[in-house]
């Protein structure tokens, strides 16, 4: 189809689809007047049952923990997929010149990277108490590595994030999540059933197995994003050997 015909087909269809969608959302409860039972029940029982103050974290890691396991593996699979798609056996590693930035940039970079690392660890550790969690903190941790590349250079970044080691870390995170579930099976309860002492609400030692799952997902997410960044970065700095030679 020519682009014109395609646009015509699309515009007509999209008009119809948009009309249908608007018709549908008109029947939703008014904005702000949501009354659904699922969320209300969880808001009222989660803190008492799991001693975590962040109900979203309780939902993510406990009530709907299988969804999170799937989501972790989606990230894991996409990293493997990107590695598969961007592989280049004919790759010739170009000598990447060492780039020395000005002292100000490097100092600022070190300062901020360290700060980001601490912030990331804080967000991960307190994920089930205050806003945050494995995913959010994992991304912040990964950004600390990216900052090393920005403020330093490719070699500094590479020496801090060797692919095999980060691969293993990511696999440990993803596999670790599943293993926690299997531990529950071995303890005689359902898969991903919470185990361990529930501790005191509001303290770091609470939530049973939620902290373990939290850490596993943080490990996996940070490793995944660092690997993704490495893969795409390699495309820029490594020149593939020309195939016609």
């Amino acid at each position, binding site marked *: 189809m020519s682009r014109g015909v395609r646009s015509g087909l*699309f515009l007509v269809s999209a008009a119809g689809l948009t009309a249908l969608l608007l018709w549908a959302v008109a029947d939703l409860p008014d904005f702000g007047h949501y009354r659904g039972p699922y*969320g209300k029940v969880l808001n009222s029982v989660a*803190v008492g049952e799991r001693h975590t*103050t962040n109900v*979203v974290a309780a939902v993510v890691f406990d009530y709907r923990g299988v969804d999170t396991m799937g989501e972790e593996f989606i990230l894991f699979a996409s990293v493997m997929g990107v590695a598969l798609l961007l592989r280049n056996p004919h790759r010739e590693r170009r000598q990447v010149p060492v780039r020395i930035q000005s002292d100000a940039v490097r100092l600022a970079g070190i300062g901020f990277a360290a700060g980001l690392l601490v912030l990331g660890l804080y967000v991960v550790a307190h994920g089930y108490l205050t806003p945050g969690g494995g*995913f959010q903190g994992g991304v912040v941790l990964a950004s600390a590595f990216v900052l090393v590349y920005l403020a330093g250079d490719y070699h500094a970044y590479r020496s801090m994030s060797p692919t095999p080691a980060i691969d293993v870390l990511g696999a440990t995170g993803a596999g670790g999540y599943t293993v926690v579930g299997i531990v529950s099976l071995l303890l005689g309860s359902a898969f991903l059933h919470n185990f361990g002492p529930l501790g005191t609400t509001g303290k770091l030692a609470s939530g049973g197995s939620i902290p373990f799952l939290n850490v596993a997902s943080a490990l996996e997410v940070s490793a995944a994003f660092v690997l993704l960044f490495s893969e795409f970065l390699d495309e820029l700095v490594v020149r593939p050997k020309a195939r016609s030679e």
Partner: protein
Amino acid sequence: MSYLPYALAVWIFAVGLYGVVRSRNLVHLVVCLSVAQSSTYVLLLSIGYVNRGTAPIFADVPKGTRAVDPVVQALTLTDVVVSVTVAALLLALAIQAQRHADTTDPDELSEMHG
């Protein structure tokens, strides 16, 4: 006006989809797809909103306080991760398209047809 957030989600979706259909560059296509995906975040979060409700985090507020729906927030979290992963894969494909097919125009990638 209480349906405006939902209508906004529909509009964002339509705009993103239009970009995907008319795109001439794979990277642009990925961005448009992300725009379309963000419409689902808006929809989910708007559905869960409760008037004068706070975040479902009871660290500083007493336990019975009115809070928004936590389930849609968990759903949106998953949704965001899914969008990121698809974008990563498509961008990898875009890079390979430039390298091996010398083009990033989706209209030109029609080796198999008929």
